[in-house]
């Protein structure tokens, strides 16, 4: 177990990514990031809007190609299928096919991983129970509230029982009860030894859940520390001060 923990689930070296604005002006979205996240760690990437958090996740998932540097996810280059099989992803404002029911959506997601038959249906049953969506499973996702979509998105991210989970603003759109449920799910995943990488604006959630945090500001990783070294009491106010002191004006 210890040997496994010492392996890097994510290793990023000198990552650079240029992006274009709607007016086709190029800017440096990610500028020389270095990251190393060990297996089993819950890592919180925090930063103001437009800092490059979502771009970082897209690069780690292979949705975007880097302009410089190297990315290794689960020992493989980003986007490689062998790694993607072991990854779960919950995007910010999950994107759904409104013509599908919740169950059909999860079935579709499972089939993309090559899962099928009773094994997939059993897994879907477990996940619907986990996110408390059993009674809405036969309704089309087009009729779901934002919170329900977020729960279904979480179930979809877990369909392949991933070793590494990317969560982009997982608490977004959830009411306090929904946030509490989502926290419980993340804690349960942590206890199972999953590696979790998540972006969030909500510092109380980061303080509560993360082992390590990084501050991203204007595409640069300006600080990175173990959470308990910042605030042993997991105090959100202390984390907020830490965050504010490391963002570039």
């Amino acid at each position, binding site marked *: 177990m210890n040997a496994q923990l010492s392996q890097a689930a994510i290793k990023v070296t000198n990552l650079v990514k240029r992006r274009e604005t709607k007016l086709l002006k190029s800017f440096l979205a990610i500028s020389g990031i270095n990251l190393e996240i060990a297996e089993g760690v819950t890592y919180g990437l925090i930063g103001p809007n437009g800092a490059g958090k979502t771009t970082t996740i897209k690069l780690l*998932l*292979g*949705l975007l*190609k880097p302009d410089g540097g190297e990315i290794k996810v689960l020992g493989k280059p980003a986007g490689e299928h*062998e790694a993607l099989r072991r990854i779960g992803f919950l995007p910010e404002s999950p*994107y759904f*096919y409104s*013509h599908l029911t919740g169950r059909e959506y999860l079935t579709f997601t499972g089939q*993309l*991983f090559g899962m099928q038959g009773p094994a997939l249906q059993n897994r879907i049953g477990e996940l619907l129970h986990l996110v408390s969506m059993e009674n809405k499973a036969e309704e089309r996702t087009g009729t779901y509230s934002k919170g329900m979509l977020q729960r279904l998105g979480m179930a979809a991210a877990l369909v392949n029982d991933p070793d590494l989970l990317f969560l982009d603003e997982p608490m977004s759109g959830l009411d306090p009860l929904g946030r509490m449920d989502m926290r419980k799910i993340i804690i349960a995943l942590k206890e199972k030894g999953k590696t979790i990488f998540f972006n969030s604006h909500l510092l109380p959630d980061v303080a509560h859940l993360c082992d390590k945090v990084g501050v991203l500001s204007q595409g640069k990783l300006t600080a990175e520390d173990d959470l308990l070294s910042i605030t042993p009491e997991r105090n959100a106010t202390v984390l907020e001060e830490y965050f504010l002191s490391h963002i570039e004006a």
Partner: protein
Amino acid sequence: MEHCAESQGQKVTAKKAGLLLPVFAIASNTFKEVSRDKVVYTFFVFAVIISFFGLALGSLSVGQDLRIILDLGMFGISTIGGIIAVFAGANLVYKELEKKTCYLIFTKPVRPWQFILGKYLGLALCLLVLIAAMAVFLTLTVYIADPGQLLVFKERVLFIGASLLLTYLELLLIIAAAEFFSTFSSPIMSVVFTIAFWFIGHSTASLQDLSKLFTNSALQQLANFLYWTLPDLKTLTQTRSAIMYGQFPNSELSIYLTAYLVSYVIILLVLSAMVSEKRELP
């Protein structure tokens, strides 16, 4: 040794199934998406109305009723099928990018060719079901107009079926073209490109005639190049009309037409997959 070969064979089969499962999943999702769209049903009802309108119009003519029913019915089916192929095809890839549902797909072990093929097969299957349903109504109107002898009616059904099969083959090409254009352009532009492709397809024979008129050899070669590169749908239309009125083409022409269209579809799908492979998601 035999056991080893058998297990190797099983592994290859399992690998092939693993490659095809995401294709079927995407195809099934696309089929559901298109078939659950109310617009498709509206078009279907419209096609049925055209068929019955043919019946009413046919009854007003003397001796030409069956021809009017068949002409109008075939026109309805190919036009409605074409509209759905162009508009749904032009949105096939773009909609996934716009709604960002492509993030769901490309963060899974799915290759661009599996995505392109799955989307294509889903829409192709949907059109097949739609055309089959419209064909049932056309056959019904033909039967109402002239029940005649069972043998003659069976023969007519065969002609309608064979003719619609060629219509479907043409629509398969249109979907592939629309999907190809939708990999790099907006839906409006894809629709324009696809309609232009379709229109040119019905006029390529003129290019060959045109090449004979040029005295400049470069222009001659250009016209010939365009003739051989762009699809020739005129022969298909002529064959389809001939079948409709009881003249089956020889087997050589049937094989040629099928192989020609299938090859074109494969080339367009390969090009679509290549563009998708290179394209970075928004």
